C-alpha cells in the first residue's frame, strides 16, 4: 500500500535505530499512548532494537481495552434481547463482560454482526425496519466522527430503529490522569497520530508544559514509531518538553475542522470510567441532548446493569505504565487471550495480549 509500505523499509529503520542509539546517553521511559503503536512495536520487535534502558510503556490506548465492564455488560444485555440486531467492530466480540462475551451471547442465539463501518449498521437498520439495530460505538477521537456521522444520518434520514451504545473516551484527559498518578514513571509521550488527525495538536502544549514532558505526535509504521522515539529522546536528552509532530503527512495542527464540528454537534463531554483505571473526569463523550433519542442506553432498559472488575487483574497499573504485563501474577496463567481476565489481555493490541502474543518466546526463556 502506497504511503504505508515505504514506512516499513528496514534499511531506513536501521538508520533511525542508529540515530536513536547515537542520541541516547541515559535510560528513559516513554509511553506510547496508542494501542496501535503498541501492536506495531511488538509486532516488528522495535523495542528489541532500542538502547538498553530506553523503555516503552504501553499506555491506555486501546479503546477495546478501556471500555468499562459495565458498558460491556449493557451491550451483552441489549444484544441478548429478542429481535435486536447488535452490530459491532470485530474485536469487541471477545471482550469479556462480567460473565460472558458477545460471542457467547451470539452462540446463545443473539443476532450479533461484525461490520466494518458504523454506516454498515445504519444500512442494516434501513434494511430491517421492524427490528431494533444497535451499533456499539466505542473508540477514541479517531472513531468518534464515524459514529457521530452515523447518528446524524440516522436522524436526518429518519431511521428510528437505529441506536448507538456510546462509550467514547478522550486521550488528553487520560494523559493528564497518568501524569497525576503519584507513582508515575512516564517521562515522555508518543501521542496517537490518528487521534491528532481528527483533533489536531492544540490540546497537548498545556500538558507538555504542566507536566514538563515532551510529546511527539507519532504514526504507526516502523519508521514512524522510530522517528517518534528519536524525536522524543532528542528532546529528553536536551531537557526539552515541546510538542512535536513526527507524523505530518496525516496530522495538521488544526486537526480536521469538519469532523470536529460534527463531534461538537452530536456529542457532549462527560465523565467516563476507564476499565482498569477508574473514573477520569470529563474524559469521554456521550450523545448530546438533541440526539439522545438514539442512545441505546435510553432505549433499552439497562440502567440497572452494574458490574465490578476482577480483583486479580492489574491492568490499571499496566495501563498506567506502573507494571509490565508479565509482572502480573495472573499473566499467562489465569489470564490468557483465550480467557482474558482484564481489558489489556482482550484486544490483540492490549498491552498484556501483545506481550503474550509476541514475547512469549523471551518470557519462557527468562
Amino acid at each position, binding site marked *: *500500500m502506497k*504511503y504505508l509500505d515505504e514506512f516499513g523499509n528496514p534499511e531506513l529503520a536501521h538508520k533511525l535505530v542508529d540515530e536513536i542509539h*547515537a542520541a541516547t546517553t541515559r535510560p528513559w521511559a516513554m509511553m506510547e499512548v496508542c494501542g496501535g503503536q503498541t501492536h506495531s512495536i511488538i509486532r516488528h520487535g522495535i523495542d528489541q532494537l532500542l538502547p538498553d534502558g530506553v523503555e516503552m510503556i504501553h499506555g491506555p490506548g486501546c479503546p*477495546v481495552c478501556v471500555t468499562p465492564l459495565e458498558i460491556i455488560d449493557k451491550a451483552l444485555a441489549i444484544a441478548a434481547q429478542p429481535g435486536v440486531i447488535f452490530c459491532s467492530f470485530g474485536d469487541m466480540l471477545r471482550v469479556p463482560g462480567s460473565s460472558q462475551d458477545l460471542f457467547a451471547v451470539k452462540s446463545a442465539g443473539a443476532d450479533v454482526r461484525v461490520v466494518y463501518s458504523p454506516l454498515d449498521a445504519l444500512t442494516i437498520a434501513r434494511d430491517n425496519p421492524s427490528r431494533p439495530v444497535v451499533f456499539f460505538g466505542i473508540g477514541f477521537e*479517531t*472513531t468518534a466522527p464515524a459514529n457521530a*456521522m452515523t447518528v446524524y444520518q440516522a436522524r436526518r434520514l429518519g431511521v428510528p430503529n437505529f441506536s448507538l451504545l456510546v462509550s467514547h473516551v478522550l486521550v488528553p484527559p487520560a494523559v493528564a490522569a497518568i501524569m497525576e498518578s503519584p507513582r508515575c514513571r512516564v517521562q515522555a509521550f508518543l501521542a496517537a497520530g490518528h487521534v491528532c488527525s481528527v483533533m489536531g495538536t492544540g490540546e497537548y502544549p498545556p500538558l507538555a508544559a504542566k507536566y514538563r514532558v515532551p510529546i511527539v505526535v507519532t504514526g504507526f509504521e516502523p*519508521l514512524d514509531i522510530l522517528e517518534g522515539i528519536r524525536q522524543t529522546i532528542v528532546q529528553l536528552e536536551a531537557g526539552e518538553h515541546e510538542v512535536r509532530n513526527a507524523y*505530518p503527512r496525516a496530522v495538521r495542527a488544526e486537526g480536521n475542522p469538519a*469532523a470536529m464540528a460534527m463531534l461538537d454537534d452530536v456529542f457532549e463531554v462527560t465523565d467516563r470510567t476507564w476499565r482498569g483505571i477508574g473514573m477520569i473526569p470529563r474524559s469521554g463523550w456521550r450523545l448530546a441532548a438533541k440526539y439522545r433519542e438514539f442512545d441505546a442506553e435510553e432505549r433499552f432498559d439497562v440502567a440497572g446493569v452494574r458490574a465490578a472488575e476482577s480483583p486479580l487483574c492489574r491492568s490499571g497499573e499496566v495501563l498506567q505504565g506502573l507494571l509490565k504485563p508479565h509482572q502480573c501474577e495472573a499473566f499467562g496463567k489465569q489470564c490468557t487471550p483465550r480467557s482474558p481476565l482484564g481489558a489489556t489481555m482482550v484486544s490483540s493490541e492490549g498491552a498484556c495480549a501483545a506481550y503474550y502474543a509476541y514475547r512469549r518466546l523471551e518470557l519462557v526463556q527468562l
Partner: protein
Amino acid sequence: MCLAVPGRILSIAEADGVPMADVDFGGVRKSVCLQYVPDASVGEYVVVHVGFAIQLLDERSAQETLANFEKMGLIEEEFGEVPR
C-alpha cells in the same frame, strides 16, 4: 487503536446526501465516506478509518519525511552528528 490506512480516491459520488468515494488501497477497494474531507478530489490520498476519511494525506510531507530518513545516514556519515 485507530487502524487507519492511506488510500487513493478513484471516484466520488453522492449517496444519501453524503459524498462517498471509491478508494483504492493498493490491492483492495472500498467505499469510503468523504464527509470530513470535503475538499478531497479524485487522485488524492486520504487516511481512512472505519470507512471514513479522517484526513487528507499530505503527499509532499510524506515524501519529505522519507527523504529526511534517507538523508539521515548520509548526514551522520558526512558530519558525524544527529540533526534535529
